[in-house]
């Protein structure tokens, strides 16, 4: 039996292995996405028909070519992406699959927008090469652009009747049209609150479309970050008072807290972060805002004693329309756009944003604003 088993095993495994190879070959060649594999020297070993179609090269023109040189990658602002920043390189530097969106230059010189994912090919723990899978996102980009245009247009159209509603509710509240009784005042307050919320939502949608289309305008000025925060604080304090939440600002009047940045964008960021902190903190809680000057940047922390962000949701917190399940149950108002917008605005300012959070303990959002670095162009 001992002598027969290895032979049997070989016989059984041979056709299976062949079948699997054939299956793998069929899968690779029939994929709708482009796929390219490389050896350990970055030379192209396999190319599927979809990749040939997207890039406009024949298989024979790609095989054995050095991938980074043959397939030029460009960022959406048209610059050639450094070798070290390409997904296929990053995957070997980080050991993780890497995804990114960029342009690939076709053989005819045209640029095609692609979503690329790269991973190492491993055998028994040893890297043998890499695989890049990419798809043409021309249509997706066009749909995104049309969607943004539509939101922008719809938002503008909504703003016009809304400003009439706001004007007349203000006139009613101020008694220009006679004295109101208690029930009328209560109803009017509801109209004011609802129209304010609608106005905020429209502003958020407009800002998001500006960020996504790269058309947001920056007006940098030399400002004291503490003073900028103080300007938006009174409005936020009204919101906090309703829940008896204390809001404190800790900032020194040092010249080191002065920075060249866009104060309107900073105000938008602070308003979003602090109103979120108030919204997602139970009654009688605390929200602290701290401004800390550092050598090359100013760090702002918004800390709350709120419900916190569950661990499972933390990597999605800056995604569009995302709301944590623990929050949805407690606070029905919200669009899931606030943090997505904040992240986009911080990117425009050339800063960084991150957070730490523990459920039932609280959350701290941190953002940094660079002192000397020029704000980065808006992301497309």
């Amino acid at each position, binding site marked *: 039996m001992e002598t027969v088993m290895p032979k049997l095993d070989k016989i059984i495994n041979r056709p299976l292995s062949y079948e699997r190879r054939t299956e793998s070959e069929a899968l690779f060649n029939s994929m709708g996405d482009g796929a390219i594999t*490389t050896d*350990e*020297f*970055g030379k192209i070993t396999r190319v599927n028909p979809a990749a040939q179609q997207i890039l406009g090269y024949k298989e024979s023109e790609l095989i054995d070519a*050095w*991938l*980074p*040189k043959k397939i030029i990658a460009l960022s959406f602002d048209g610059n050639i992406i450094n*070798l*070290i920043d*390409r997904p*296929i*390189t990053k995957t*070997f*530097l*980080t*050991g*993780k699959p890497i995804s990114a969106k960029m342009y690939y230059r076709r053989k005819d010189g045209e640029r095609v927008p692609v979503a690329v994912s790269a991973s*190492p090919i491993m055998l028994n*723990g*040893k*890297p043998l*090469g*890499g695989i890049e899978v990419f798809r043409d996102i021309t249509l997706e980009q066009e749909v995104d652009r049309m969607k943004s245009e539509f939101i922008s247009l719809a938002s503008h159209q909504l703003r016009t009747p809304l400003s009439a509603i706001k004007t007349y509710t203000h006139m009613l509240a101020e008694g220009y049209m006679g004295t109101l009784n208690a029930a009328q005042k209560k109803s009017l307050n509801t109209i004011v609150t609802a129209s304010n919320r609608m106005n905020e939502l429209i502003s958020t949608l407009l800002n998001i479309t500006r960020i996504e289309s790269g058309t947001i305008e920056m007006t940098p000025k030399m400002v004291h970050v503490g003073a900028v925060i103080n300007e938006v604080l009174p409005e936020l304090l009204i919101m906090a008072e309703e829940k008896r939440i204390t809001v404190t600002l800790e900032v020194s009047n040092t010249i080191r807290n002065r920075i060249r940045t866009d104060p309107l964008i900073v105000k938008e960021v602070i308003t979003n972060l602090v109103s979120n902190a108030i919204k997602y903190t139970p009654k009688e809680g605390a929200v602290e805002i701290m401004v800390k000057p550092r050598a090359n940047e100013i760090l702002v922390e918004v800390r709350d004693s709120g419900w916190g962000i569950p661990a499972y949701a933390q990597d999605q917190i800056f995604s569009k329309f995302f709301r944590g399940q623990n929050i949805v149950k407690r606070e029905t108002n919200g669009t899931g756009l606030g943090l997505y917008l904040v992240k986009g605005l911080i990117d425009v300012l050339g800063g960084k944003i991150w957070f730490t959070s523990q459920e039932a303990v609280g959350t701290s959002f941190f953002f940094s604003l660079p002192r000397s670095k020029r704000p980065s162009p808006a992301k497309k």
Partner: protein
Amino acid sequence: MASSSNATIYDKVVRITHAYLGPAANRFIARQVKNHLHKRPGDLSPADLLSLIDWIRVAVSLLTEDSEVVERYIAELQKLAHSYGRQPGKN
């Protein structure tokens, strides 16, 4: 990058790499050790060298088309591994 008899394996790998990647050598090797071997640079041992060399080969091959340079660099690292009694296939 002065030579020293007290140099760790990590220091020796960085010293070889410095000739090819310049000032980026330390960061490059530190990331390779951390990301692929899940170790701190100071914990790099002779048993890790061949695996580290495999990762370095693919990463550097995507930074330069010149495979001769890559091979020369890898040969130097393999020589270092060999000095610790490590040879490909005998890891």
